């Protein structure tokens, strides 16, 4: 899990704990995206994981104000976070982050699947 807030020195205790909960929501959503895909998901390059779908909607949905609000409240730039989620892939494993190649591959698969789906919807 990510520790985005505990190093802020001048934050009040209650606000810090609230920020930790908000950060936990974001980190849980990210972790769900990295869940190992099933064989069917891998072969068809689709997402069938409900938790991961919720996370994708949370991050990239049409109305992702909640994610943006949470990010802003913990002092994180939501746009750069989303950019990183979109661009990260298995080649980045071990390159300044602690995620494995398979985790990043799963993340990449799901983000690409969701983007293609959204793109197809927009085109239709």
């Amino acid at each position, binding site marked *: 899990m990510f520790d985005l807030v505990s190093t802020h020195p001048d934050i009040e205790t209650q*606000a810090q704990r609230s920020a930790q*909960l*908000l950060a936990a929501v974001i980190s849980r959503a990210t972790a769900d995206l990295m869940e190992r895909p099933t064989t069917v998901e891998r072969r068809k390059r689709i997402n069938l994981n409900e938790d991961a779908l*919720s996370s994708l909607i949370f991050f990239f949905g049409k109305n992702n104000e*909640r994610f943006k609000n949470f990010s802003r409240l913990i002092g994180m730039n939501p746009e750069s976070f989303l950019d990183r989620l979109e661009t990260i892939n298995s080649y980045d494993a071990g390159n300044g982050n602690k995620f494995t190649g398979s985790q990043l591959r799963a993340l990449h698969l799901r983000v690409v699947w969701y983007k293609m789906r959204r793109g197809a919807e927009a085109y239709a």
Partner: protein
Amino acid sequence: MNEYRIKISVRNNLILDAIEKAGYTSIQRFCRDKNISASGVTALIALKTPPIMRCGSFSSIASQLMEELCMLPTELWTAEQLTMSLKHNTSFRNVGGEDLQLSSDEALKLVFDREKEEKVAEVLDTLSPRAKKVIALRYGIGGGEPLTLEQVATVFDLTRERIRQIEAKAIRHLQITHIAEKLSNL
């Protein structure tokens, strides 16, 4: 991004302290007893009007106040307030504006912290009572230290694993609360 409206009031503590030392806890009562305009005194305390007029003499309210409190101008106003109001009233207000700007950072931080807590309280209200309590205990929200899974499990008389599951489910639930919201995003 939300817009904030912050109200910051600046007060002259020297006058307030002097009135308090004179044995009054209320400005209104002080003004009624001494027969001074309460609105005038309030304006002086709130630094809305300067004690010295443009002509260079003290305003009638300021003079009355000094008389009744038996205090010198320097005891009721800082040198900065007195000299600036001598130059021009607007410069006095400009400096007040700068002071407000400086202190607004702290005020913004307070608003930011409060918003964080309110947001958490708002999203926690969407959870079931048990999940809400588990999250509150695990993260120490609403007072108290954050508890471990084991400690929370003891409180609910459940296993540690079950508490972990409830917590995970609750945190996922906080991502998107309403089904309608979820469907509209599909």
